[in-house]
């Protein structure tokens, strides 16, 4: 029944939809599928994005999108900005196996909602939504009620450790060896010892078991004993971590059948050590497993959906995504820890969690020349036209099939990867290479492109009609220009600039970034310094450049743009942000940044078409 037809309809109902109510059963299932898989495809759906292909509304801040003039660093900062702002409502995961030309896929779509289960302001206090994103989800028939009422919550690794401290769940703790006790400690230990022993003896003494309820409650009052389940238990108040250790030490000396539990209060401070009396060795083991499973249950409740990502992380299976910079900034910020300030740190931290990530965009570039396949369907149709790569997709039916088709993107990604893999012959590390010219996953892994694309389907795509020509430029050949007449076209501005300074008489390229700001690339090295130096010193004569400058024209190097991104000055208009940083003295830039010129891929067709706005 599998065919090459790729479409939502064919795959509708194939994706298992997971919410809070069926999460634990789905978790067991997906664990198995992840374990058996060769690769895992993922796809996420945020409440908003700046990449903007989805709708005109995100054009409001055209420059916040990842642009062709972005270096990987600025692209990361833009992705970080989006990831910190928006929330993920759907996370599709599809473990799959490759058997020759057959793909055996097990797609899941998890509905998420950041519910503060523990009342700790986690996982998020608030999040942003773009109405265009929600509207397009609505168009696909997304059930927001199901998502908000019944979405699975989660916490990041960093949040979990905070929650562990603040969530008052009793835990067992190993004793750490401590230095010899002081006098005060000895007194404290002596007191605890006699108290515990009295209680212990009272509990052990069978003679009193027949006492009346009055006596029982009196004894409870005097001894402070209570019950933990059906077992007797005693709470000991402590005021510090040190005292906890002392109590544990004392308890260890008294008897083997006591199990100490540490109970923190709401603020995460330890207030009580609870001693539970067990009747035998077996009983004690029983209690220990009981406590452990309780702890695990509690931990899972805190981790929520992240448990799935932890399973993926532990499996060390290669992860396939489309536009991974976008997806993994979200994943890092929601499920690992707050995003670090630089791309390098981000990649480092990410690699600790997920060792091999394959970006379809990178694989596409390996297959063909750098070209414009803006989304998954476009890439698929490109492949279909250019190569013969028969791939059969098999989706074993899941028990509870449904009529929803959310998360089918992940199937497209798996399918696309299988097709690409026919060409690239990537072999999972654990499989022996049977054929020649096979390549390792690690040859392709962890290369992210600054790419301004989304997974939106779009019917009229420019495919194959134009080979994109892009050239590499160093960022030291780039200046940003603002303060010109609003509403002027790029060609008009270029004409205006032509010849007004020696650098503008040579060939240069100019495009508008938004209504207020243009970017200029010079072909002649050194032009940037020339222009900036002349403008600074004022040696620009009295020609039209001076006129334009007195009308407010301003020029700055690429460094200012980087600084804008680094400082997070995401103003509506880029000119406004640039104005802010350039009003500062230039010499406060760290010197190491100045010499750091990165390369950007510039194509003559800038991705923003202002007419579309």
């Amino acid at each position, binding site marked *: 029944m599998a065919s090459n037809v790729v479409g939502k309809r064919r795959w509708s109902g194939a994706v298992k939809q997971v919410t809070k109510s069926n999460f634990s059963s789905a978790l067991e299932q997906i664990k198995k599928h992840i374990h058996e898989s060769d690769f895992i495809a993922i796809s996420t759906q945020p409440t908003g994005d700046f990449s903007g292909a989805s709708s005109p509304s995100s054009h409001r801040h055209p420059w916040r999108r990842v642009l062709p003039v972005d270096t990987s660093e600025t692209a990361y900062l833009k992705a970080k900005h989006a990831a910190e702002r928006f929330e993920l409502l759907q996370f599709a995961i599809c473990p799959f196996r490759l058997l020759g030309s057959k793909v055996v896929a097990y797609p899941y779509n998890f509905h998420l*909602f950041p519910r503060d289960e523990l009342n700790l302001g986690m996982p998020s206090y608030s999040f942003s*939504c773009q109405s*265009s994103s929600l509207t397009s989800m609505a168009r696909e028939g997304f059930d927001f009620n199901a998502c908000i009422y019944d979405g699975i919550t989660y916490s990041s690794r960093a949040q979990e450790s905070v929650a562990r401290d603040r969530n008052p769940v009793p835990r067992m703790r190993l004793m750490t060896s401590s230095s010899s006790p002081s006098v005060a400690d000895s007194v404290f230990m002596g007191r605890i010892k006699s108290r515990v022993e009295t209680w212990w003896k009272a509990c052990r003494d069978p003679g009193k078991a027949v006492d009346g309820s009055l006596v029982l409650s009196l004894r409870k009052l005097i001894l402070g004993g209570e019950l933990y389940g059906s077992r007797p238990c005693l709470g000991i108040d402590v005021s510090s971590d040190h005292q906890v250790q002392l109590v544990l030490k004392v308890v260890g000396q008294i008897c083997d059948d006591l199990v100490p539990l540490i109970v923190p209060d709401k603020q995460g401070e330890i207030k009580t050590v609870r001693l539970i009396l067990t009747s035998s060795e077996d009983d004690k083991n029983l209690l220990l497993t009981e406590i452990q499973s309780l702890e695990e249950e509690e931990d899972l409740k805190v981790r929520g959906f992240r448990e799935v990502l932890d399973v993926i992380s532990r499996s060390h299976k290669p992860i396939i995504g489309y536009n991974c910079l976008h997806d993994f900034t979200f994943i890092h910020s929601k499920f690992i820890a707050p995003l670090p300030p630089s791309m390098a740190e981000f990649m480092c931290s990410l690699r600790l969690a997920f060792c091999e990530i394959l970006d379809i965009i990178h694989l596409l570039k390996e297959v063909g020349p750098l070209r414009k396949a803006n989304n998954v369907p476009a890439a698929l149709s490109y492949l279909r036209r250019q190569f013969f790569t028969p791939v059969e997709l098999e989706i074993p039916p899941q028990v509870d099939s449904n009529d929803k088709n959310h998360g089918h993107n992940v199937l497209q990604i798996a399918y696309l990867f299988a097709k690409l893999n026919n060409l690239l012959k990537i072999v999972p590390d654990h499989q022996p290479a049977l054929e020649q010219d096979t390549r390792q996953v690690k040859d392709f892994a962890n290369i992210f492109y600054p790419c301004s694309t989304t997974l939106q389907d779009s019917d*009229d795509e420019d495919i194959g*009609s134009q080979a994109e020509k892009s050239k590499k430029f160093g960022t030291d050949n780039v200046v940003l220009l603002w303060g010109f007449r609003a509403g002027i076209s790029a060609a008009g501005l270029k004409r205006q600039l032509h010849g007004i300074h020696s650098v503008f008489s040579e060939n240069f390229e100019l495009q508008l970034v938004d209504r207020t700001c243009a970017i200029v690339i010079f072909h002649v090295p050194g032009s940037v310094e020339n222009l900036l130096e002349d403008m600074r010193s004022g040696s620009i004569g009295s020609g039209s450049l001076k006129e334009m400058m007195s009308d407010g024209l301003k020029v700055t190097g690429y460094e200012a743009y980087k600084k804008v991104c680094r400082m997070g000055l995401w103003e509506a208009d880029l000119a406004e942000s640039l104005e802010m940083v350039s009003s*500062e003295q230039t010499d*406060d830039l760290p010197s190491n940044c100045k010499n750091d010129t990165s390369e950007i891929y510039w194509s003559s067709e800038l991705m923003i078409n202002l007419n579309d706005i």
Partner: protein
Amino acid sequence: MRKQWLLCVLPKTLTLARRSHPFSSSSSGGGVAVKKVTKANFESTLEDLRTRVREADFVAIDLEMTGVTSAPWRECFEFDRSDVRYLKVKDSAEKFAVVQFGVCPFRWDSSRGSFLAYPHNFFVFPRKELPLDGPAYEFLCQTTSMNFLAKYQFDFNACIHEGISYLSRAQEAEALSKLSSAYENELTNSTNTSQENLEIPIVSTADLLFTERIKNRFHEWRNGIMKNSCTDHYLKEEPGCVMSQFQTVFFKMRPAVELNGFNSHQMKLIQLVLRKHFEDLVFIRTPGEEVVFEKKVVYTDSEEDKALLMREVLEDLHRSKEARVRSAVGLRHVIDCLVSEQKLIVGHNCFLDIAHVYSKFFGPLPSSIMEFALSVHENFPNIVDTKHLLNSSHALQYLMKKSSKSLSSAFSLLCPEISSYPMKSAHASYVKFEVQADEAGSSNWTSGAKHEAGFDAFMTGCLFAQECAHLGIKFDLSSPLTNLATNEKLKGYINLLYPSWNSGTVIDLTTGIEKPESNYKRKYPTVLFSNIVLLWGFPSKFKPKDLKDCISKVFGASSVTSIFFLDYTAALVQFSKKEFVNDFLMLKDTLERNPDDPISVLNPLAGLLEGDNTRAADYDTYKTICSSSASKVLFADQAEAAGIRWKTLFSSHSPEAGSSAETRLHSHHVSCEDIIDTLYAARSVS
């Protein structure tokens, strides 16, 4: 046909409705027919509502939002200074979205001796409906608020799928002005054909082939038309070729071709080819379905005809855009109706609601509370707050005793007739209400539930009428109601709102002046803002007590009057004397300048400065940080996002000028860079 659902006077007529939705025992009364309004029935409802509002004696409103505070430290605190408090309300109204808007007109029907109420529940969703680059269609959701809405079965699907969108007055004006300037531009451009370069930039052989082919096609098509004008002409079918879609249609009495199936690059090439080679063929865009334009090539037989066509097309375009703007105004039509009818508006603790109405439907919120109040007053000359009435009327206070002043509890206490079931015998002092529902289209009627804007508006209105009765306003059978807004007994309560639930003040909308409320019981002693130091970024292990101990060791046991933690990264410290503020800041600065000096190390404050990230400033800095548009969860992060790079900021208060006027004395303490940082922190605010 209308059916009367009488709640008090004619209980029998209610039985049917009652059975299906029995009133719940106490607070959350159900069984009241509330009209659910979405995109689908908005137009028809609007006409009906206009009439209801015109006839109404007062209109109750209520809003449901996606959140209240964008960060924990943005919550309103009792000791907030008035301007800071307003900034917090402003931030909330700007960042969160309204998802439900409840409107309930009430009319006194003297012949029945009861109020007729018409509760409406509008689902709202700020959708981008115009292709212009307008406002940010981005809003914040507070997770706890979303969960709260979910707990009361809020229908998010109805909201996002079918919610009514809106444009504020400012947005509408902007859209219209952009439209007309775009229109003028296009008009001038169309007459001026020699613009831009006519060179076709051929970048690939594919482009070259395409342009040649398209040129031939258009030649053929035009020749065909010239030969046998007025008969349908089909191009020769060429299998697999895009041109086979060429088919002559008529557009404004002229032969034309619809361009389908070309991508944007090809469209550009087509336009270039037409401009270069065909003087009599015109490329036009006409408004089609949704946002997309239909693209056509039209044959014109003369220059004049061409100009005429262009004008006609542009006029059509303009008209359709204007119509779109009008329809995009959406929910604001309801607000416009309330404003133009100048009715008495009733809300419960409605300052934030009014701020939302202002920012969503009028325009950007003013920067000061006084400006805001006066501007609101211009639009709504009479607003009354039922909560303020409860608190300030002695008669009502007596009735309420000590029970909660929340809407639902006040409603169930004062209007037990409606809120409880089984019904008690109608007491004379209870005002009677009837809810009217239109039987046609019953799917649009829902049974009201607590925390649903339509039903909350209904409760608010009932509560208000009941309050009026307790104040001595008579609602008698067969006597018409005089204007409530000018009623002597109500006079002292109108246009007074609480800026926040715990401010202890009321704002008079007619004057814009905020005054302390007489019978508000303060939890904290009065705050002297000039005695306050704002501290943030200190080690997280510091608890209020540690902070107090630490400062007291330096400035004396009684130097600290109070300490309030905004969150675990920031605190406000109030000193007993104003001088301590500067002394503290000065000392902190000195210690930081000489960190290795033994005196610095031994100073009790050294612990506070650990981590080298502790910042301090006066209360005005707190205001600056509050006004920053960023919304970080932790105050310390917010301060950084607001562009603060310095560690200590001094200010001195000239004794004559009092606390409001001050001059900053930071020239020698703060570097030039710091000043600039602060400047653009202030800029990012504006």
